[in-house]
């Protein structure tokens, strides 16, 4: 369950603003905007990534998957980073933003169309939630990258957040890409391995929490200011009583 916390973290040194925008996800349309040389290079990197992912989903048991993942995770992360860095060099920023956006839409559409049949409803929903959250993370990260530089006294904290964020976002990405590799190459995933992949997808929540901390560091919340005047009236009380009464009927299992 806590396997996500047990992996050695090979962390980057920069702050959140220095991390590349999140571009490692494959998109069917990207080839159209690339030069021939760049497209070839992308294809070669993608091929390395696919080989790694296919090895991961080819195993039969959770134990084998965990063992193999510990061998190849760092390589998949380096490959994803390489793809992202190359994209930022060869694709203009507005086009890249559009491609990243499209890639999320393609992923959501693929999961909606084929996910339940391939992985079951629970895993499909977990995967859709992961892609939805990655899209949100991408938007927040763009805001950070385009935002003002962080003050000197907050730089150390920003670096710490970036280190953890980098780990969790690539961890979530590794597991979601295992699912997409299974779809692309029509490979089955055993239920045991699928459970572990779904567990790995949970890392996206940590990644979101961390990138939000990066936002809060740059644009602090005004939440501690005094609220304006407010009169609690009978209607408020009725609504509150009604909510508490509803809870008596609430159908949640005992804690």
């Amino acid at each position: 369950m806590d396997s996500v916390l047990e992996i050695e973290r090979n962390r980057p040194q920069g702050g959140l603003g220095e991390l590349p925008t999140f571009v490692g996800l494959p998109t069917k349309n990207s080839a159209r905007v690339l030069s021939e040389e760049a497209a070839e290079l992308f294809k070669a990197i993608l091929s390395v990534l696919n080989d790694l992912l296919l090895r991961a989903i080819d195993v039969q048991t959770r134990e084998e998957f965990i063992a193999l993942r510990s061998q190849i995770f760092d390589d998949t992360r380096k490959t994803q980073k390489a793809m992202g860095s190359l994209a930022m060099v060869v694709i203009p920023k507005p086009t890249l933003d559009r491609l990243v956006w499209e890639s999320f839409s393609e992923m959501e559409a693929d999961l909606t169309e084929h996910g339940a049949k391939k992985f079951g409803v629970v895993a499909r929903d977990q995967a859709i939630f992961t892609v939805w959250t990655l899209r949100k993370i991408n938007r927040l990260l763009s805001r950070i990258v385009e935002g003002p530089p962080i003050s000197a006294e907050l730089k150390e904290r920003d670096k710490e957040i970036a280190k953890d964020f980098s780990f969790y976002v690539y961890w979530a990405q590794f597991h979601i890409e295992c699912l997409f590799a299974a779809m692309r190459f029509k490979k089955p995933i055993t239920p045991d391995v699928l459970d572990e992949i779904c567990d790995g997808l949970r890392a996206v929540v940590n990644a979101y929490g961390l990138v939000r901390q990066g936002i809060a560091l740059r644009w602090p919340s005004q939440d501690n200011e005094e609220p304006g005047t407010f009169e609690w009236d009978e209607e408020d009380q009725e609504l509150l009583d009604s909510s508490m009464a509803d809870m008596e009927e609430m159908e949640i299992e005992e804690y």
Partner: protein
Amino acid sequence: MEFKQGEIYWVMMKDTATTGAEQKKDRPYVIVSRNQINRLGQHVVAVPFTSKLRHACAHRILIPTTQMVPNPACARKLVDSVALTDHIRVLDKSRLEQPKMGDLSETARLGIEGALAYVFDIR
């Protein structure tokens, strides 16, 4: 009494002064409403926890105890839990048992925020 976002409280469904007994539906909740709102009325908005980890799914977030800071003054013990974000509720402050059980880590608190955005489809 000030209630803050990210604080975890044991919530009693009925007034224990009148019932004198803990109900089956009593459970921990984490406050998710912003502090400005928490200062305003007699209510907070909160998400219930369950200790049944099989409930964890896409938007129902698994919160290990490593992401919680227990309050040493509270006798109730925090355990690995799942935040049932789709059961978000308005709570009467008087049903929040003192002292608080603890606080969520910043990462977990914001993770729940992300799950709530998904529940409400806030893009």
